[in-house]
C-alpha cells in the first residue's frame, strides 16, 4: 500500500487525537463528554482565518488573540454546561446542555461566516519527504503539537498534585471538598484549558483541513469516536484512538472512495463497543 496514505492517515488521526484529548481534559474531573468541544476547533480555525487570512496579523498576535478568545469560550462553555447540571441535579442534563451549547456556538459562527471555509496560508510552505511520502510541514506541526500536548497532560495527571486533584474530583466531589480542594475551580480550569487546547488545534490545522462554521459537531463526533475506541478518560487512549481512526479513514477512503471513510470509523466504533466496551486503554467504567 502507498506510504503516502498512511502518512496522511497519521496526520488526520492526530487532529482527531487532539479533539479526543481535549474532550478527555473536560471529562477527567467532570465525567462529562462535552459535545460542544468541536466548536472550540471551529473557533481556532475562524480566528486564524480572520486575523491572519483577512487582517494579515503576525502569527504571534493572532496566537495571543486565539488564547484569550479560547479562554473566554471555555469559561462561557463551563457556565453553559455546569449550571444546568448543578442546578437540575438530573444525571442526563449534561447531554442536552452540551448539545445546546454546540448548536448555540454553531449559530454564532454562522452569523458572520455563513459561506466561508476557514483556510488561510500555511506557516511553513515547505514539504517534508518521509521515505518517499510527501507531507506538508504544517501537518507535521499539528502532529508534533498533538504529541507534546498528550505527553504533557498524561504527566500532569500522574505526577502533579493538580493532576491528582483532577482525578479526585472525578471520583468524589464531596470528599475532595472536605480535603480543601477547590472543586469548582478545578472544573473551570478543565473547561478553559480544554478549549484552549482544541482551539490551538483548529488554528494550526485550519490551513490543511476543511473547517466550516458548521463543522463543529462533525469534529466532535470524530473525537468522541476516537476517545471511545481508545478508552474514555485516558490521554493514551485519545492518541491511540485518534490515530487508529485517522489511518482507517485514510486507507478506506483511498481504496473504496470517500463515502466509506466515515462509515468505516463508525463500524470500528461498533466493533470496539462489542469486543472491548471500555476501549483499548480504558479502565472499567465506574458506575455511580
Amino acid at each position: 500500500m502507498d506510504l503516502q496514505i498512511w502518512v496522511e492517515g497519521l496526520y488526520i488521526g492526530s487532529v482527531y487525537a487532539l479533539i479526543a484529548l481535549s474532550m478527555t481534559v473536560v471529562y477527567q474531573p467532570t465525567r462529562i463528554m462535552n459535545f460542544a468541544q468541536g466548536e472550540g476547533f471551529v473557533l481556532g480555525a475562524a480566528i486564524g482565518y480572520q486575523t491572519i487570512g483577512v487582517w494579515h496579523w503576525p502569527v504571534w498576535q493572532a496566537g495571543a488573540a486565539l488564547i484569550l478568545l479560547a479562554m473566554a469560550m471555555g469559561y462561557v462553555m463551563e457556565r453553559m454546561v455546569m449550571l444546568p447540571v448543578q442546578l437540575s441535579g438530573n444525571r442526563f442534563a449534561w447531554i442536552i446542555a452540551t448539545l445546546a451549547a454546540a448548536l448555540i456556538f454553531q449559530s454564532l459562527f454562522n452569523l458572520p461566516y455563513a459561506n466561508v471555509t476557514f483556510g488561510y496560508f500555511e506557516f511553513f510552505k515547505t514539504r517534508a519527504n518521509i521515505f518517499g511520502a510527501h507531507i506538508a510541514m504544517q501537518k507535521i506541526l499539528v502532529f508534533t503539537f498533538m504529541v507534546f500536548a498528550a505527553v504533557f497532560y498524561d504527566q500532569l495527571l500522574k505526577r502533579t498534585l493538580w493532576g491528582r486533584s483532577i482525578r479526585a474530583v472525578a471520583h468524589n466531589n464531596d470528599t475532595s471538598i472536605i480535603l480543601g480542594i477547590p472543586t469548582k475551580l478545578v472544573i473551570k480550569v478543565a473547561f478553559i484549558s480544554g478549549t484552549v487546547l482544541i482551539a490551538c488545534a483548529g488554528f494550526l490545522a485550519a490551513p490543511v483541513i476543511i473547517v466550516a462554521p458548521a463543522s463543529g459537531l462533525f469534529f466532535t463526533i470524530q473525537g468522541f469516536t476516537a476517545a471511545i475506541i481508545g478508552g474514555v478518560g485516558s490521554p493514551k487512549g485519545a492518541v491511540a484512538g485518534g490515530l487508529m481512526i485517522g489511518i482507517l479513514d485514510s486507507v478506506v477512503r483511498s481504496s473504496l472512495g470517500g463515502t466509506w471513510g466515515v462509515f468505516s470509523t463508525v463500524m470500528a466504533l461498533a466493533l470496539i463497543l462489542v469486543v472491548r466496551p471500555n476501549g483499548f486503554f480504558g479502565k472499567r467504567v465506574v458506575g455511580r
Partner: protein
Amino acid sequence: MSNLELKNLTITYGGAKALNGLSIEVKEGEFVALLGANGAGKTTSLRAISGLLKPTTGSIRFGGEDITKLSGYKRVALGIGHVPEGRQIFPDHTVDENLQLGSFIKRKSYKEVSQTLEEMFGLFPKLRERRKQMAGTLSGGEAQMLAIARSLMSRPRILMLDEPSLGLAPQMVLEMFRYLKKLHAEQGLTILLVEQQARLALQLASRAYILERGQVKIAGLAEDLIIDKRVAEAYLGTSH
C-alpha cells in the same frame, strides 16, 4: 480557639427536615460524642459543618468566625477536618497520593507536609508499608487509618469522624479508638465523634449529645450518660 458552635440549625432534603433546630457546641480540646439512632441526623450535622450542605436557618461558628455561608473547601484551611462516613478514600490513587491530597491546603509548605507525613507513618506504620499501593487494595482497617491520616494531613484543629468503626472487626475498632485517644491526649486534638457503638464512644468522650429526629434529645457528661437509664435502654443495649 477552636470553639465550634451550631445554633438552631435546620437542614431539609426536598421537604423533609433532617436537622430541626439543632444546637451543639464543642470547645477547644474537648472530645465530644454525637450519638443517636440511624437517621437521627448525625451525618447531616457533620456535612453541614463541612459546608457540604447549606442550612435553611441557623448559624455555624468556628473559632469565633461565622462560617455559615463559607464555601466548603475554605473551611479546611480554618482547621476543620472531616473523616466521612464510609471512609471515602480514593481507591485509584496510591496511599501516598491520598495523603498528599489530604495536604492540599499545605501544598506551598513542602517541609511541613513531609514532616506531617512522617508523623502519620509514625502513628500508622502499616501505611508506610503500603505507600505505593493503590488505596483500593487496603483492608477495611487500613483504609480507615488512611482516611484518618489523610484528614490529619491538613493539620486540623478539630477532627470530625463519622462512624469510623463501621465495617471493622472488633479488634480493629479497639485499635482505632486507641489511636483517637492518643491523638486527643498527646496532641490535644479536638474531636467530634459520631458513633453507632455508643458505649465505646461514651468511654472515650468527655461529653456527648444524643440526637433524635434532627434535635438534641439528651446532652451531658459521658460518665453520667453511660449510667443514665434512658440512654441505656435506647442506645446501649445493642452495642455489645
